[in-house]
């Protein structure tokens, strides 16, 4: 439904037939289309602006490789900048004394509970870790049951549910059980919350202070629009995010939120959620996400061959 960047740039490519170094006019014209493509992919406006400025700086005056057109050259530079901004793939950090606490946070419905179970399954199968899952979500109906069922599906440990217990107490009890029963990792799933909800943000900060998590993962839906910058900034400022997970990349959203969040927090994207099943967790590939944001895997591979 979106015009891909390659077709958008078609006209610009046509006009940029000249060889030699890229002129400021060539670049500006091409970047106008890139700007629209990024905005349509839901990259947040302030991030788009900074990004375009840095691409422009890099592109103007560059020599165009003989085998490609100036337009393709601009696209290659855009793609490279995008990959750089998205950052490299980083694995989950478990470099701490066991049990290692991992805190999962994010807006309502972003995929925290599912992702908690996915990470548990991955750590269990790939790294042979003994993982305990604990739900601190005392608000959403049946949230604790949901995690308990998923823990059973993943065949990992699950903290017994005590009705009426507060999140901080649940977190402490989870760590205690983790120590007592020799768990390597304790994953704390929290209730969905708005970054502007003072009370709930204070609550999760209290949980953080109680357990000092090694990883605090912000879980964000790949379909998120312009608000991605606000929520990522606020979660990072108020709780201190160490990494991010982008869920629902199995959908057809262009996923510009990835770039927005990465740009405002500087924190790495650690995993991609690619389905509802517990094995649908992927490590982050910046080049694939870049191609998707631009809606143009074709041109990128073409340019890479050049």
């Amino acid at each position, binding site marked *: 439904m979106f015009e891909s960047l390659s077709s958008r740039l078609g006209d610009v490519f046509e006009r940029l037939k000249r060889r030699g170094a890229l002129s400021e006019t060539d670049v500006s014209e091409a970047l106008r289309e890139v700007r629209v493509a990024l905005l349509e*992919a839901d990259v947040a406006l302030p991030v788009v602006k900074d990004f375009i400025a840095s691409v422009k700086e890099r592109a103007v005056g560059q020599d165009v490789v003989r085998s490609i057109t100036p337009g393709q050259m601009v696209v290659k530079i855009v793609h490279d900048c995008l990959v750089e901004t998205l950052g490299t793939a980083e694995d989950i950090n478990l470099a701490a004394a066991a049990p290692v606490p991992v805190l999962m946070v994010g807006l309502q419905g972003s995929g925290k509970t599912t992702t908690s179970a996915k990470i548990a399954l991955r750590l269990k199968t790939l790294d042979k870790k003994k993982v305990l899952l604990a739900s601190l979500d005392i608000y959403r109906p049946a949230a604790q049951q949901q995690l308990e069922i998923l823990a059973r599906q993943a065949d990992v440990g699950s903290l017994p549910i005590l009705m009426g217990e507060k999140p901080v107490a649940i977190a402490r009890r989870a760590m205690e059980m983790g120590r007592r029963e020799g768990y390597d990792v304790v994953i704390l799933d929290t209730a969905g919350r708005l970054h502007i909800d003072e009370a709930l943000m204070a609550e999760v900060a209290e949980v953080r202070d109680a357990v000092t998590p090694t990883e605090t993962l912000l879980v964000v839906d790949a379909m998120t629009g312009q608000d991605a910058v606000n929520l990522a900034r606020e979660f990072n400022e108020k709780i201190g995010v160490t990494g991010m997970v982008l869920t629902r990349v199995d959908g057809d959203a262009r996923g510009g939120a990835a770039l927005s969040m990465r740009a405002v927090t500087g924190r790495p994207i650690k995993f991609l959620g690619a389905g509802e099943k517990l094995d649908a967790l992927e490590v982050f590939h910046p080049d694939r996400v870049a191609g998707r944001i631009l809606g143009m895997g074709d041109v990128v591979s073409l340019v890479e061959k050049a």
Partner: protein
Amino acid sequence: SRSSSRLSQGITDLFTKRKLDEAALEELEEMLIAADLGVTTAARVAALLAKSRFDQEISPEEIKSALAEEIATVLEPVALPLRPDPANKPHVVLVVGVNGSGKTTTIGKLAKSFRDQGLSVTLAAGDTFRAAAVEQLKVWGERTGSPVISRDQGADAAGLAFDALKEAQARRDDVLLIDTAGRLQNKTDLMAELEKIIRVLKRQDPMVPHDVLLVLDATVGQNAHSQVEIFRNITKVSGLVVTKLDGTAKGGVLVALAEKFKLPVHAIGVGEGIDDLRPFEAKAFARSLMGLD
């Protein structure tokens, strides 16, 4: 809230003692983009304003009100509440949408509002896939005094919906709200499952479902276009509910959706609580988008 006040502040800065010239218009357009209106709609709305006010001295307040009015005009025709037809016993509402958009919670809130109107409501736990989805809906059933018809996780959703319809018909209930599992619109197998639910319901009564509600999360950006387009093609969506408008996302994509699809927006979700459902009001929504009120 934050984004709207930022938008509002931006406009205030921009138009204090300033002419509405090209540069000002461009910045204005960008502010609309930052509210998720999308590039095309933002340009169109800004252009409308330019037509009448270009090169005039214009105050920030004027510009905000004028823009809010333009947007409200687009939204006004789609601001229509969901009204169960008393002739239908039951009036069947199928609730669909992508994962985590707020379907189950919205059903709980709708059930509450119908119960408050004195209607009898039955809930059907059509999400037979997600862990504890049935338990979640049962809690809403208890909260609203509505019976919940369910099967075990993994059961056939269409079969469950069929049973629920027969049961609600036998009881001559006023409303039957059918929950469904979240599904991304590009998953053809899951969309086919939705088609099957409708097909099976129609076997019992060709008029059912009377309404198909698509629940959209206000935090979602331009992908909402694809959601509406595909869900509408497959299920004949009759109306929308936009959730999570209590956050900083203001759901600006709705302006473009209203222009393009003209689907009624029945209600908005403004929280996780049972009473956090509001009628959709075009003027209020538009003014909130512009950071007014």
